[in-house]
């Protein structure tokens, strides 16, 4: 359903993605792993038009995303939670959430989605009128994920959701991603530095190194491969 073929991204003379190809089936959670600078974030950014790919294609349900502007991509059912979460600090929690669904014309469903997010994340309901600036790291991550879900996406791109969070919060976030995928049939591409946590909830995994795919396979196989783990995943 998601088909990335020979994707190349460069920042000036520095190549970030050097011909990446991968495919993700519907409803599957795929972990994208690798060290710092392996190209994980660039992969997501190229998929949602935040950087222009030098060449190659990203095709989602028959639409070539690499041809679209960022603001059109969410309309194709693809939501991207960027690195560092992208919560807008000057807006209230509720405004942040509402913003995620504003492009949809169905007002009634937008209201329903908001209510669902508050049920998902009761902590956000308590803080709905506060500025997002006041939230803790974990709450911000919940807000960022909730805001992406307001779009009712079919494909969720998560960039390092565990970054800077305490292990117990990381576990909660991972559990949430697993539950979302199980409950709603959401397809997830999960970029993570924390390979152990990501592999525990993913069905498939891709390991990137220096802008190239090193291995693509079942998450369990990759977790079991000691040499691979040692070399690229750091555990």
């Amino acid at each position, binding site marked *: 359903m998601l088909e990335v073929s020979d994707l190349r991204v460069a920042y000036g003379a520095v190549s970030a993605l050097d011909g990446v190809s991968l495919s993700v089936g519907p409803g599957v959670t795929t972990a994208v792993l690798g060290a710092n600078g392996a190209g994980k974030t660039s992969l997501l950014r190229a998929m*949602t*038009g*935040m950087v222009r790919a030098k060449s190659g294609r990203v095709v989602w349900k028959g639409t070539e995303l690499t041809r679209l*502007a*960022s*603001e*059109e*991509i*969410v*309309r194709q059912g693809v*939501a*991207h939670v*960027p690195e560092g979460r*992208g919560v*807008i*600090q*000057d*807006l209230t929690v509720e*405004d942040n959430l*509402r*913003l*995620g669904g*504003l*492009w949809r014309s169905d007002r009634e469903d937008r209201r329903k989605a908001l209510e669902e997010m508050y049920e998902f994340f009761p902590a956000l309901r308590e803080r709905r009128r506060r500025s997002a*600036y006041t939230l803790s790291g974990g709450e911000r991550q919940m807000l960022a994920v909730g*805001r992406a879900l307001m*779009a009712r996406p079919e494909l969720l791109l998560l960039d390092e959701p565990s970054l800077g969070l305490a292990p117990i919060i990381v576990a909660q976030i991972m559990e949430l991603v697993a539950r979302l995928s199980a409950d709603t049939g959401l397809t997830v591409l999960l970029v993570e530095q924390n390979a152990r946590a990501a592999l525990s909830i993913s069905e498939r995994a891709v390991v990137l190194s220096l802008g190239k795919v090193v291995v693509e396979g079942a998450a369990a196989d990759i977790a079991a491969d000691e040499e691979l783990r040692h070399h690229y995943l750091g555990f």
Partner: protein
Amino acid sequence: MVYAAMAMALVLIWRATRVVNFAQGAMAMFSTYVAVSVIDRGGDYWEALVVALAFGFVAGAVVERVLVRPVESKPPLNAVIVTLGLLILVESAAAMIWGDSVRSYPARFSQTGLKLGSQRVALSPFDLYIIGAVLVVMAGLVILFRATSLGLRMRASAFEPEVARLLGVRVGRMLTLGWALAAVVGSLGGILVAPKVFLDPNNMDDVLVYAFTAAIVGGLDSPVGALVGGVGMGLSLSYVGGYLGYSLETVGAFVILIVVLMVRPEGLFTTTTPRRV
């Protein structure tokens, strides 16, 4: 009050695009000349007003699309230079089209003070009209930004354009709309102030300085702050002009600006927290 209108236009552009438009006053002057042309051709006050505001809307949008868009993703100084250049361009263009002699502009209502009992007070029907118009505009802006989803999209585009795009906000349109609305508010300010100061191609420079100070005093983020700042500026400048001499008014404005920047650089009414980048 008219400083308040102009200050609000600055606040509007700031909120919508994070750019301070130094050509705001010049654009307002230009719109006011457009209104003069309509009146010269036999149009009445209201026709001229509508035409000038419509002109302001289109001009604001065009300026954003053509001049500001290319520097939007560049360092803020680039946008400052572009708007300064625009200021000079617009003033020269107005002088070329309408000449640089001073024009008067008709007031729609009487400018003589109202009678309160037997006392004549320094408040004319025209002043009341100005106050009313500015209050309506301010209320409209507050509602737009605080209570509508369009306002929410505009704020998001200004704060975090990249994130807003990922959430499906068509940021380019929001920026264009922000400039267009600001130019409308600025044009209204120009037409309101014109009967009081006469009109020539450079006459909005002082007004812009005062409005800029008012916007800073009130906090660049806050329409209500712009209103209070504008009224406060008007009052303090009248005192400075009255007691110390008219020529010190501009100096007075800068003194206020510097004091506020030293004491509370984020403005008196702003709610956002300053961030170090």
